[in-house]
C-alpha cells in the first residue's frame, strides 16, 4: 500500500514533532470544497463545536476510530489562503498550525473539488512544499464525470503530487473506508524536520505555482473513455452545462431578482404557515402540563415554581422550535443546492448601501424568525466588522416573538368589519422594521466605527445541484442543537427569575391577585412616572417588564394585569378588557395613540434577554449587547413618547 513501509521506517528514525500529540488530523480546504461532509463521514457526525478561546471562530473536533486507534479530527472554517488578512483567518490558520488546545495536527487532509482541481490543490501544494504531512481527498467526482464528461486518475495525481489522493463522495460517505486506510498509512509519517508555516508568497510565486498545478491537473484529468477532448483548451475552465443553463435564469439581472423574491416569499410563508399548527400544539402541551401539575398539587409554591417557572419557561423555548427547524431546513436546502450564494450576489448591491454585503443576507433574513439563530448564522460572514454590524442590526428585525404582541395591538386597532386594515398594518410594520432596522443600524454602526471602509465580496458561486436530504437533516440537527444549548439555558433562567418577580412574596390567591401583590407590581408602580409620558399606567409597565423574558409574554402578562381570567380563548376577553380599561383619572388606557406608542416601542426595543446572552457569546464582549440593550430601549421609548404626543397633537387620541 502507498508509502506504508516508509511511514513505519520514518516513525522509527525520527521522533514525532514535539508539539504534536500524534493523534490529531486536521481538515483544510477552500470554502465549498465539501470539507464538512468529509468531516461528518469520518466522525459519523459525532463531534462538538467549540469557540476558539477569545474569539468567535468556531472549529469542530470529533473522533474517529482507526482499527484499535482513536484519532481526533479537527475542522476549521474554509480558507482561501495561508496568509491571513483578517483576525478570524488568523485564528483559523493558527489553529491549523498547532496554536490551539488540541496541538499540532500530525496530518493535514486537504479537501479538493474535482471540478476545480488546480485552485483547490493550491493549499495542499503550499503545505507539501513547506514540508507538512498531507493527504488529499477529492470530492465532486460525480459532477466532473456526469456533467463535464471527464474523469480524474487519482493514482496518477498522487504520484505527481507526492501524497496519497483518495476520491470520495462526502455526501454519501462513499470512499471513506479508503480514506481511513490512507490516514492509517501516513498518520505516523510526521512532518519534515524543517516544516514551517508558509510565508506570504510573492505574485510571481503564486503564478508559477498555478502554472505547475495546471500542468499537473491536465495530466491527471482526461475525457471519459470514448469521449473526445474539446479542442478549445477550455475543458478545465468552463462550468458544467446544467449550472450554466440554470444560471441563465437565476443570475439574470431582472428575472433573477424576480425568482429571488419568489423564493424568499415561499421561505417566509412556510416559516409562518407551516410552523403555526405545530407551535400551537407545543404551546397547548406545555400549558396543559403546567395547569395539570398545579391542579394536582394546589397551593404548593414549589410546584408553582416548577409549573409556571420551569415548565412554561421550557415551553417558551420549545414554542419557537418548529419555526427554527423549518428555517434551518429551508436554508439547508438552499445552501446545499448552491442557490444561497447566488441570492447573496443578487442582494449585495442593496446591502452595501447600509454597510453590509450579500453575505449578511441570510442572517438578516433569519432575523425575521428569531435573532438568536440569526446571530449564530452570522458566523459565516468572514469579515469581523461586517459580522458585528450584522449582529448589531439583528435585534431590530421583526422577529416572530413580536408577532403575538402586534397581533393583539393590531387587532385592537382594526375597526370591526375591516380586517384588511389589520393585514395592511402588519405588512407596513414589516416594511417599517426592515427599513428602520437597516438604515438605523447602519447609522449606529457608523458611529461605533463598525462600517467597512473597503469591503470585498469575492464570493464563489458553487455548482447547482439537487440537495441531499441526509445532508440537510444533519446540518439542521446540529444547528438546532446549538440553538437549544445557547438560547435554552438563558431563556429558562430568565423565566424562573421573572416567575419569582411576579409571584413573590408568597401568597395563595389567584394568579391575578398574586401578580398585583408581587415585586413586579411594586417595580411597575415605581416606574409609573416612566409610563405616564406614553399615556400608560403601571399595569402595562408590569407587562412590559415581563416581556423581557420573551416578548410574547407581554400578552399573557397584560391579561393577568387586566384581571382577564385565562382560558382557551384569551384573545376576545382580553380585547374587551383593553377597551374598558381606564387610567386613574378615568380616561381610556388603550387608545390609538397609546397602542401605536407600544408598537413603536416594540419595533426598536431589545427586550429578549436570551438574545443578549447569545450576542455576548458571539461577539466575545459585553460592548455590543449592553449598547443594544440601553440604546435600543431608550430609542424605542423616546420614539414611543414622540408617537403618542405627535398623534395627540394631530387630534388622534
Amino acid at each position, binding site marked *: 500500500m502507498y508509502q506504508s513501509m516508509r511511514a513505519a521506517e520514518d516513525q522509527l528514525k525520527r521522533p514525532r514533532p514535539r508539539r504534536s500529540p500524534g493523534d490529531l488530523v486536521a481538515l483544510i480546504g477552500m470554502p465549498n470544497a465539501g470539507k464538512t461532509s468529509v468531516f461528518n463521514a469520518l466522525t459519523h457526525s459525532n463531534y462538538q463545536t467549540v469557540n476558539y478561546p477569545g474569539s468567535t471562530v468556531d472549529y469542530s473536533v470529533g473522533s474517529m476510530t482507526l482499527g484499535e486507534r482513536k484519532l481526533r479530527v479537527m475542522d476549521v472554517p474554509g480558507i482561501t*489562503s495561508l496568509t491571513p488578512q483578517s483576525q478570524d483567518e488568523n485564528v483559523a490558520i493558527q489553529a491549523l498550525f498547532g496554536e490551539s488546545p488540541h496541538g499540532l495536527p500530525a496530518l493535514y487532509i486537504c479537501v479538493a473539488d474535482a471540478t476545480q482541481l488546480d485552485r483547490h490543490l493550491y493549499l495542499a501544494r503550499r503545505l507539501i512544499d513547506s514540508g507538512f504531512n498531507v493527504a488529499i481527498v477529492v470530492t465532486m467526482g460525480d459532477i466532473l464525470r456526469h456533467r463535464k464528461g471527464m474523469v480524474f486518475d487519482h493514482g496518477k495525481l498522487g504520484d505527481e503530487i507526492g501524497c496519497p489522493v483518495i476520491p470520495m463522495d462526502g455526501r454519501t460517505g462513499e470512499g471513506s473506508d479508503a480514506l481511513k486506510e490512507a490516514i492509517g498509512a501516513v498518520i505516523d509519517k510526521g512532518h519534515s524536520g524543517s516544516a514551517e508555516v508558509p510565508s506570504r508568497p510573492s505574485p510571481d510565486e503564486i503564478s508559477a505555482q498555478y502554472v505547475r498545478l495546471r500542468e499537473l491537473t491536465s495530466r491527471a484529468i482526461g475525457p471519459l473513455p470514448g469521449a473526445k477532448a474539446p479542442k478549445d483548451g477550455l475543458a478545465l475552465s*468552463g462550468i458544467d452545462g446544467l449550472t*450554466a443553463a440554470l444560471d441563465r435564469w437565476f443570475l439574470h439581472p431582472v428575472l433573477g431578482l424576480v425568482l429571488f423574491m419568489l423564493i424568499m416569499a415561499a421561505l417566509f410563508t412556510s416559516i409562518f404557515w407551516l410552523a403555526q399548527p405545530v407551535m400551537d400544539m407545543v404551546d397547548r402541551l406545555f400549558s396543559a402540563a403546567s395547569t395539570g401539575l398545579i391542579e394536582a398539587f394546589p397551593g404548593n409554591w414549589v410546584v408553582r415554581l416548577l409549573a409556571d417557572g420551569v415548565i412554561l419557561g421550557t415551553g417558551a423555548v420549545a414554542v419557537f422550535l418548529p419555526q427554527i427547524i423549518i428555517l434551518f431546513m429551508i436554508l439547508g436546502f438552499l445552501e446545499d443546492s448552491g442557490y444561497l450564494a447566488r441570492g447573496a*450576489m443578487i442582494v449585495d448591491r442593496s446591502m452595501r448601501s447600509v454597510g453590509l454585503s450579500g453575505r449578511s443576507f441570510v442572517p438578516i433574513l433569519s432575523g425575521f424568525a428569531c435573532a438568536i439563530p440569526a446571530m449564530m448564522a452570522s458566523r459565516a460572514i468572514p469579515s469581523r466588522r461586517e459580522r458585528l454590524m450584522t449582529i448589531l442590526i439583528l435585534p431590530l428585525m421583526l422577529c416572530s416573538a413580536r408577532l403575538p404582541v402586534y397581533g393583539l395591538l393590531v387587532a385592537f386597532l382594526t375597526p370591526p368589519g375591516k380586517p384588511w386594515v389589520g393585514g395592511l398594518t402588519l405588512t407596513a410594520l414589516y416594511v417599517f422594521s426592515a427599513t428602520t432596522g437597516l438604515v438605523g443600524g447602519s447609522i449606529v454602526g457608523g458611529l461605533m466605527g463598525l462600517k467597512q471602509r473597503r469591503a470585498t465580496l469575492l464570493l464563489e458561486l458553487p455548482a447547482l445541484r439537487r440537495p441531499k436530504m441526509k445532508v440537510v437533516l444533519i446540518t439542521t440537527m446540529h444547528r438546532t442543537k446549538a440553538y437549544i444549548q445557547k438560547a435554552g439555558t438563558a431563556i429558562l433562567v430568565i423565566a424562573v427569575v421573572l416567575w419569582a418577580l411576579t409571584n413573590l412574596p408568597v401568597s395563595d390567591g389567584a394568579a391575578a391577585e398574586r401578580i398585583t401583590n408581587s415585586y413586579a407590581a411594586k417595580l411597575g408602580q415605581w416606574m409609573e412616572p416612566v409610563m405616564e409620558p406614553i399615556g400608560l399606567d403601571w399595569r402595562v409597565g408590569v407587562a412590559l417588564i415581563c416581556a423581557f423574558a420573551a416578548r410574547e409574554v407581554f400578552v399573557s402578562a397584560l391579561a393577568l394585569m387586566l384581571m382577564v381570567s385565562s382560558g382557551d380563548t384569551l384573545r376576545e376577553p382580553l380585547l374587551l378588557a383593553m377597551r374598558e380599561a381606564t387610567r386613574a383619572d378615568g380616561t381610556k388606557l388603550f387608545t390609538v395613540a397609546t397602542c401605536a406608542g407600544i408598537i413603536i416601542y416594540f419595533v426598536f426595543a431589545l427586550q429578549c434577554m436570551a438574545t443578549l446572552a447569545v450576542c455576548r457569546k458571539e461577539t466575545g464582549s459585553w460592548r455590543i449587547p449592553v449598547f443594544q440593550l440601553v440604546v435600543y430601549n431608550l430609542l424605542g421609548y423616546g420614539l414611543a413618547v414622540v408617537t403618542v404626543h405627535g398623534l395627540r397633537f394631530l387630534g388622534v387620541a
Partner: protein
Amino acid sequence: MSDKSKMTLLDLKRGEWGTIVGVEGEENLCLRLLEMGFTPGESIRYVARALFDDPVAVNLRGTLFALRKGEAECIKVCARQKIN
C-alpha cells in the same frame, strides 16, 4: 505602472472568454485574487451581472465567482489567444 487604458474584465462581452494579463490594485486584494487563481495567462469569462452591473459573475478555473465592480476592475484582460 497601472495603465488606465488597459482592458478590464468588465470590457469583455458577456459570454466571451478573455485571458488575464495581470491583477492591479490594492496589494492585499491582489494577493487574494491571485491566490484564488486569477493569475496571468488564465482564461476568464464574464458570465452574468446583477442590476447596475454590480456585482458581476465570472467563470474561472472551472467555477463561478461573484465580484464587485471594483474587484472586477482590478483584473486586466486581453482577448483570448487561441491555443492550437
